Structure formats: structure tokens, C-alpha cells
């Protein structure tokens, strides 16, 4: 029977100091070698792909919303709101993410506009998430350092299932918004959000509260939840793909390694899913080279795939690994899926002191 070892995933516990002592914090990470000229071409920005995709996204939101409104009161509204919800509650995940990196569009204000809208849709406060995601990229799946570890060991299976409808994540988000609206931060957040940025956090939290309260009041005034079906509720009823796509990124893989090939997954997806997810299925590539825009990730993947573990052929193959791994981690938090580098891949650098795999 494996011994149960529960690690402290907070950023204020003993694991934070341990990560620093082991040389895992703000460390150098493995990067596949790519000549500068090629890298420059891969990093090159343009507005075209994101303008096209954003136009399609907004048009699809408008048309599905129109259908939902037109058929409201009949069962015919269900498929329309299902589409609207996925576009609103799930696709917003990749939009805030890409625009937060500032790579989706070439023009900075375009990134900023879509970032703010998508953040509200998924109820992720823009300044808080900008900084937490910065830390996630510095210290990806380093325990005690990364505030965005979705599946700690042992995993919270009930929480993951609740998040199919964003119930746990939204509850946590609302508590944070309420606290931020009073001009305060959680202790973890204070570690990665600089003083100079905190005013923005508090201001936006108040704006979010006003919008949500206004929608609730509108529903009460007309005796219908229809307004909330467009603003607010789709964060919940459309959230399924945040979990379905998001868990493939790192769940079940190793912790405390300085090589994204070992703690991230690249999963092939069909074009519809890649549109919804803005190519974040190329997650090893994204983490290794966050400067590369989403529309260039397939090219980057082709360039480095021989130096990486075999990608997953699809969600099915990924989940055949993730589900048993998470299930086993409930009882055996030491277990993780060890990604195999191809024999000819460039070897890992010297592992940091103490960074020994858990099995």
C-alpha cells in the first residue's frame, strides 16, 4: 500500500521555500534548439488570423444567441443556448489566454479588448489572472510556486466534476471578486501581484459585481432568467470544454521538472476543437515558446516534434491516460505519468538537486 504524501500546493506554505532551495523557482527550462531566423518567423505577429477568428466567434455568438432568444420558452432554444454557452463559457478560456500573452493580434489594443471581454465571460479577473499566469509560465507545475495547478495530487475529483458546469471555479471566483471589491487580496495573490497593479484589481472587481448584480436585478424585474442566459449563466452552462480541454494540459504528469516535455501534453484535435481552443492543444510548444502566436503553433509543432514525446492522437487517447492516472493519484499521490522522450531527442539538462521522479 503506497504511503500517502500530501504536498502543500499553496504559495505560502513550506513547499514554496523548498522549491526555491531546490533551484526550481525562476529556473532555466529546456528549450528545443531552433535557429534565430526560424524562430523570428515563428514569432512574427499579424492581426489577420485573430481578426478572422474573432469575427467568426462574435458572429456565432450573435446568431446562436438570437436563436436562443427567438425560441425561448420552447425546447428549440436548447441547442442554440448550448452553442452560445460553449462559445461564451468555454472558448473564452483560450481567448483570454492568448490575448493575455499579447500574441493573438499584432495590435496591442486588440489583444486588450478581447482579453477584457473574454476574462469577464469566464469570470477571471484580468489583472489577477495576468499575474497568476505569468507565474504559471515561470514555474510551470512547480509545487509551492505555480498558482494554476489544476490537478494537484491527490486530485479533487468532485471539484473537477463540479467544474464541468464551472460550479467550484465560479464559486471561488465570486468569493475572490467580493474580497477584491473591498480592496483586499488573498495572501497567495499578494505574492505575485505587485502593489502598483492592485488598484486595477479592486476597480475591475467592483465593475464585475455591478454587472452581475444588474443582470440579476433585470431578471428579477422581468420575472425571467432570460437576461442571465446571455450574461452570467453561460459561464456555468457552457463551461464543459474548459475542463475537457484544460485537463489535457498537465493533469497526471510530473511535477517539479524543468522540462515542459515532461509536464505538458500536446494533443491532436480536429479543426472545430482547435478553433474553440485556439490551438492550445499544442501545449508543450506553447509553454516552451510562449512568444509564438496560436496560429503558428502547428508549424512550431512540426519543427520540434522529433525532439518531444509522441503527441496524443486525440482526446480519447489523452483521457485513456488522464482518467486512470487521476483515479490512482487519489490513493497514491506519488504516482504520475512519466513521458518518454524519443531515443534521439536531445537529452535533458542536469536535473535540479532533489528533483527525483516520484516513482
Amino acid at each position, binding site marked *: 500500500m503506497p504511503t500517502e504524501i500530501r504536498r502543500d500546493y499553496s504559495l505560502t506554505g513550506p513547499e514554496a521555500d523548498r522549491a526555491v532551495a531546490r533551484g526550481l523557482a*525562476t529556473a532555466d527550462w529546456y528549450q528545443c534548439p531552433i535557429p534565430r531566423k526560424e524562430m*523570428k518567423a515563428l514569432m*512574427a505577429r499579424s492581426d489577420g488570423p485573430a481578426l478572422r477568428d474573432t469575427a467568426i466567434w462574435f458572429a456565432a455568438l450573435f446568431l446562436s444567441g438570437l436563436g436562443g432568444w427567438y425560441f425561448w420558452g420552447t425546447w428549440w432554444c436548447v441547442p442554440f443556448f448550448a452553442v452560445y454557452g460553449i462559445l461564451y463559457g468555454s472558448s473564452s478560456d483560450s481567448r483570454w489566454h492568448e490575448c493575455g500573452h499579447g500574441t493573438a493580434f499584432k495590435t*496591442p489594443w486588440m489583444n486588450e479588448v478581447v482579453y477584457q471581454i473574454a476574462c469577464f465571460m469566464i469570470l477571471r479577473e484580468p489583472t489577477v489572472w*495576468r499575474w497568476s499566469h*505569468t507565474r504559471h*509560465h*515561470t514555474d510551470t507545475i512547480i509545487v509551492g510556486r505555480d498558482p494554476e495547478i489544476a490537478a494537484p495530487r491527490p486530485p479533487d475529483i468532485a471539484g473537477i466534476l463540479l467544474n464541468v458546469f464551472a460550479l467550484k471555479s465560479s464559486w471561488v471566483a465570486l468569493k475572490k471578486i467580493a474580497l477584491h471589491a473591498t480592496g483586499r487580496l488573498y495572501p497567495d495573490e499578494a505574492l505575485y501581484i505587485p502593489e502598483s497593479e492592485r488598484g486595477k484589481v479592486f476597480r475591475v472587481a467592483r465593475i464585475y459585481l455591478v454587472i452581475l448584480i444588474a443582470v440579476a436585478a433585470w431578471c428579477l424585474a422581468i420575472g425571467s432568467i432570460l437576461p442571465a442566459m446571455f450574461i452570467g449563466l453561460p459561464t456555468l452552462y457552457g463551461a464543459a470544454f474548459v475542463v475537457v480541454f484544460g485537463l489535457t494540459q498537465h493533469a497526471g504528469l510530473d511535477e517539479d521538472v524543468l522540462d515542459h516535455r515532461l509536464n505538458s501534453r500536446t494533443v491532436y484535435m480536429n479543426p472545430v476543437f482547435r478553433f474553440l481552443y485556439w490551438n492550445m492543444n499544442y501545449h508543450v510548444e506553447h509553454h516552451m*515558446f510562449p512568444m509564438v502566436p496560436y496560429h503558428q503553433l502547428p508549424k512550431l509543432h512540426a519543427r520540434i516534434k522529433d525532439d518531444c514525446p509522441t503527441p496524443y492522437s486525440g482526446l480519447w487517447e489523452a483521457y485513456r491516460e488522464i482518467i486512470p492516472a487521476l483515479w490512482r493519484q487519489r490513493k497514491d499521490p506519488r504516482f504520475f505519468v512519466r513521458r518518454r522522450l524519443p531515443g534521439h531527442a536531445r537529452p535533458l539538462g542536469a536535473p535540479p538537486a532533489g528533483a527525483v521522479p516520484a516513482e
Partner: protein
Amino acid sequence: MSATTAIRWVEACAVEDIDAEDVIRFDHEGRTFAIYRAPDGRFHATDGLCTHERVHLADGLVMGSIIECPKHNGRFDYTTGRAKGAPVCVDLATYPVRIDGDTVLIGLG
């Protein structure tokens, strides 16, 4: 003119070592610098490490007068050193540059 006499000019690279709208790294006496060639052909120099987490800016992307850091996409105006917003909040130090024939020299204090 007295300020310029205090500058020590150091050979950094050859003019053709840097493409237009690009950057290279230059290490000297234990320090690291980034040398830029702007789209208009002018050369500029800044500290080589991002003020956010000490990542080499020479691995980043030059767009016009902006250098974008390769780690978290923080942006600086490399002609003035000004940080353009989160996650970079501290400006970069800049250095004077002059061209002597085919050579790029940076002025160190």
C-alpha cells in the same frame, strides 16, 4: 560634451551581425547587453536582461521600436528603455551607440 568624454566606447559587434528589426546579445566584463538594429537602420543598446525576471531579451522579438521579452511577453521601448506595461514595471537601462566604419560600439560609463 563633458559627459561624452567620460564614456568608454566598447566594440560590440559588426554592423552586419544584426539584421534590420532584430537584436543580438553582447556580453562584456561579466555584464550582458542587448544591441538592436531598428527598422530605420539605427542602432540602440540596453541592458540585456529583462527587468522582470532576468531573461535574455536577445531571445525576444523586435517589432518597430519595441522589444518583447521571450518569457512573459513584457514589452519595452528599446530606444528609451521604457517599460510598456505588465508584467514589466521597471524601465531598462539604455546605452549610447555609435558606428565606426563597420563596427558597432556601445558607450559604457
